[in-house]
């Protein structure tokens, strides 16, 4: 059980990374999405780690994944920073959305485990925070607040759609 989660996570790490940097990057470049509509799905890896995973481990994994994405996006530190931020706020968001009966800490926060009505809120909050941080770092100045908000909004719509599609197609248990 324990080792299977590690294997699943490792596979998910690689597949999401490749999917992100080879397919989604090309898609958003194709419609000049790099202006307003970035499709960013790889944080799904961070979102779906088991609830009991220590915060430090989540952050280190997020850092590694973000750096790997950054290598392909040629933007050192940008995705890594946003990912570490996502990993940092993840326990807070999970705590915030805690159902009345609580969590089974051995489970992962997936749609299959906690139901769609829980998962769509969780994914939305986490993705919004991730994208907000990412675009703040991308613009790097509060002067561009309008740009930050617009990019976050549009990218959120596209990325969220992709993310839900993936979750519905594969419907991972862990």
């Amino acid at each position, binding site marked *: 059980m324990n080792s299977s989660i590690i294997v699943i996570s490792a596979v998910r790490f690689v597949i999401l990374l490749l999917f992100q940097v080879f397919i989604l990057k090309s898609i958003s470049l194709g419609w000049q999405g790099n202006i307003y509509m970035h499709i960013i799905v790889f944080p799904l890896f961070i979102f779906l780690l088991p609830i009991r995973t220590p*915060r*430090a481990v989540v*952050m*280190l994994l997020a*850092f590694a994944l*973000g750096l790997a994405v*950054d290598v392909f996006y040629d*933007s*050192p*530190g*940008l995705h*890594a*920073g946003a990912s*570490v*931020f996502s990993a*940092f706020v993840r326990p807070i968001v999970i705590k915030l959305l805690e159902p009345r009966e609580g969590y089974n800490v051995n489970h992962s926060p997936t749609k299959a485990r906690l139901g769609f009505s829980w998962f769509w809120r969780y994914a939305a909050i986490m993705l919004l925070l991730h994208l907000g941080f990412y675009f703040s*770092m991308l613009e*790097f*100045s509060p002067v561009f607040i309008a740009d930050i908000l617009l990019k976050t909004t549009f990218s959120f719509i596209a990325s969220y759609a992709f993310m839900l599609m993936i979750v519905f197609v594969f419907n991972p248990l862990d």
Partner: protein
Amino acid sequence: MGGLLQLFIRYGGILLFFLLEGICFYLIVQFNQKQHQIYLSTSNYFIGTALDRYNSTISYFSLYKQMEALHAENALLRDSLDNTYYMSSMRMDTFPGDSLIQAYRHIPANVISKSMFGGNSNSITLDRGGMHGVKPGQGVVVKDGVVGIVVDTTRHFSRVMTIYHRACRISASIPKINQHGSLVYKGDSLTVMSLDAIPTHADVETGYIVETSGFSHKFPKGIKIGAVTFAQKGSDNNYNIRVKLATDITTVQQVYIIDRLMGDEWEQLERRENEQ
């Protein structure tokens, strides 16, 4: 050590978060063109502002030195005013360079002690004395105002009888009507003096400027004193004139002592006449 470990276990997540974000931040500003420039210009702005603040704070400490320097420079400039020169040329169409001889010199000085004005003492003490060339009988002025007359000096200090002193009479004139009289204090408000001995045949109106006359060798001609605010014909063929001072003498800190370079010669001449 154990405490530190405890601290790290408790706040490890947050510490790690800041560590990783610090690394990311470093990478972002180091290797991304746009963020690098924004970072540089922002940090330059803040560092510049901080340096600016620092400089403006530090400059306060040298203000006194600067004020002293300005004071000395002012004295030099006043030395070169027209009314401090003695014109030795006889004809105006020949004006050789050496026809102007310095007749007055300004010694900058600070007021270091004041007594209550309008009372019995009416004197001030200055921080310049005999070693700077201050002698009894010299006039003391400020910009647009006469302060008084030096009555006593020591090596480093001098005592000045202000214009509020009973014995102080300043020769003052109204240049508009070419009349002169003596300026005395008669116990009014400290900004109001009386001008005596202006004959009633002259037309004195309020608003006329009062200056030093230059007839006493204590003050050069043309130092502004104030303006006439009240003029009434008195019983003794003289006007009863009140003069509002242009400068509040009671608040001055920096003054100029007027060193009359030709004063001795002038006095000698007048004394010789009296002896005859």
